[in-house]
């Protein structure tokens, strides 16, 4: 707070020379309006992230001050832990399914409902509905769907005369089930981004293509999709960053099980860091998550920017 006021006061000298009359009002406004945001943001965003880096080189249970310095040991243990490998691989799978299944599905549906008609509006609302539901609620509902005794999948297995499979307790099927729920939950969001973009594509371009004899599929492929490239790049970015942070939906579905096969980076961080109070170890996982998010964001922006120029 103190350094901040001093900081602002220094600026005052400059401002005074520039516009004498307004200085006092300006200064008062700055002193009153800017600090709350700066303090909150520093205290609850920047500091915790810096703390995570600091804690990650200690073996610490969260009580007292961290004193047991272990250097890179937490990172070494992390990179050695097979469950963490699974968590990384699962997170990668979520990114892939978002990019390769969810986004094409969303794009296809957007092309089907982007025109402004009452039925289209209705379908849009329905498709967007899962996105506004809490992840935990969605997870619980789907854990019923996948339940081996009661659920809809059990019902379908029985109808086919098959032995029921406990999907979420099955090492092979649990994660594909989670991916299904994630596509169900988020495709509507991406679809809405595409719809907004598709509606701003100039109509005469589409008309012109049709006059030239282009079929609807060709119009979509060669006019509409290239025109909304930017929206696709943006939605891809959200898909990746979102996938990196999947947590809520896993907890009610599998809670990381069976035998730790369905962890993501964040459920791993929570399970092995916080619930066991290995703050140092969990912080190392947090740092890895942070670096991955920033690294991927940076890499993604560079490659898509290049692709845009080509």
């Amino acid at each position, binding site marked *: 707070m103190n350094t901040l006021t001093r900081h602002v006061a220094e600026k005052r000298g400059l*401002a005074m020379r520039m516009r004498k009359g307004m200085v006092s009002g300006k200064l008062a406004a700055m002193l009153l309006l800017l600090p709350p945001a700066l303090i909150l943001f520093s205290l609850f965003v920047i500091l915790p992230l810096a703390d995570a880096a600091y804690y990650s080189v200690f073996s610490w249970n969260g009580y007292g001050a961290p004193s047991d310095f272990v250097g890179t040991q937490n990172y070494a243990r992390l990179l050695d832990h097979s469950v963490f490998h699974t968590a990384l691989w699962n997170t990668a799978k979520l990114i892939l399914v978002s990019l390769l299944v969810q986004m094409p599905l969303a794009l296809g549906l957007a092309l089907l409902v982007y025109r402004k008609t009452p039925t289209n509006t209705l379908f849009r609302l329905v498709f967007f509905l899962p996105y506004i539901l809490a992840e935990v609620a969605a997870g619980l509902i789907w854990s019923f769907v996948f339940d081996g005794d009661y659920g809809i999948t059990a019902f379908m297995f029985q109808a086919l005369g098959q032995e029921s499979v406990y999907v979420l307790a099955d090492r092979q099927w649990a994660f594909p089930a989670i991916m299904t729920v994630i596509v169900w939950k988020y495709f509507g969001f991406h679809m809405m981004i595409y719809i907004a973009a598709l509606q701003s594509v100039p109509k005469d371009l589409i008309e012109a293509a049709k006059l030239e004899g282009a079929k609807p599929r060709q119009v979509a492929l060669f006019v509409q999709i290239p025109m909304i490239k930017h929206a696709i790049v943006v939605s891809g970015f959200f898909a990746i960053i979102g996938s990196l942070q999947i947590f809520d939906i896993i907890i*009610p579905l599998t809670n990381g099980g069976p035998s730790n096969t369905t962890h993501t980076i964040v459920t791993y961080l929570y399970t092995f860091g916080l619930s066991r109070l290995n703050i140092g170890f969990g912080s190392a996982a947090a740092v890895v998550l942070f670096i991955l998010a920033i690294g991927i964001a940076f890499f993604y922006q560079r490659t898509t920017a290049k692709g845009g120029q080509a």
Partner: protein
Amino acid sequence: MKSLTTRNTLRVIVLIVVASVVIGPLLASFLGGFKSNAELRTNPLWLPDSWNADRYIEIFLDGDFWRYMGNSFLISSMTVFLTLVVGAAAAYVFSQIRFFGSKMILSYLLLGLMFPFAAAILPLFIKVRDLGLLDTYWAVILPQTAFGLSLAILLFKAFFDQLPRELFEAAYVDGCSYLRFFWSFTLPLSTPILATVGVFVFVQSWNNFLLPLVVLNDRAIYTWPLGMMQFQGEYLTQWNMILAFVTLTITPAVVFFLAAQKYIVAGLTGGSVKG
């Protein structure tokens, strides 16, 4: 070449199939709340034999349910209020006042757009505990506000920048201060963006699970996602009970969505696109 009507029929069939997959699980939950567990086993999907609303009524009359909802509502409302006030105030300074270093401070505040919230969760727990805020509303409100600020400031500044400058010059000649101008002109003129950001922040907070999970241990202060998991832990395989609870908890969100869908869609997609 396919005729226009066959094409359209195909289109509608595809849409109906997808819509059923989307709605199916939600409808099954709603209907499941009316069924007995024995009936759920044989009939998870279709209409119940009898519309027995006992479970819905039981939850409805249960104080816990309302307390969870009340806690969530209070936390979400406070988060929205704080994010709007603090975010708009800062954005106003960046938009209206030129000063040395403003760009740097703005970039600093926008860093939050890139940071994954989950990476900060362990230190947040420590910080909230050391501040003595565990098991208080503030434990959720303050970090949520802080993490929502970046997007709020970005959107507010873009909006404020588009307000006519002549307005401020005229007001200033009439002796209006920066603070008064912010309060009596900028804020009232910005209701569309305030609503958009407000809705976005509210939904995020209403649905938040990780942060409350970490900083709230006392059941009396649980938000509804925590209450729901608690409830599920108590009833385990009594699916009819759990489905009734889930249905009741998500109903406000669905109603809110249908009522304010314009703002919600704008806030959740348009808003994030610009971010």
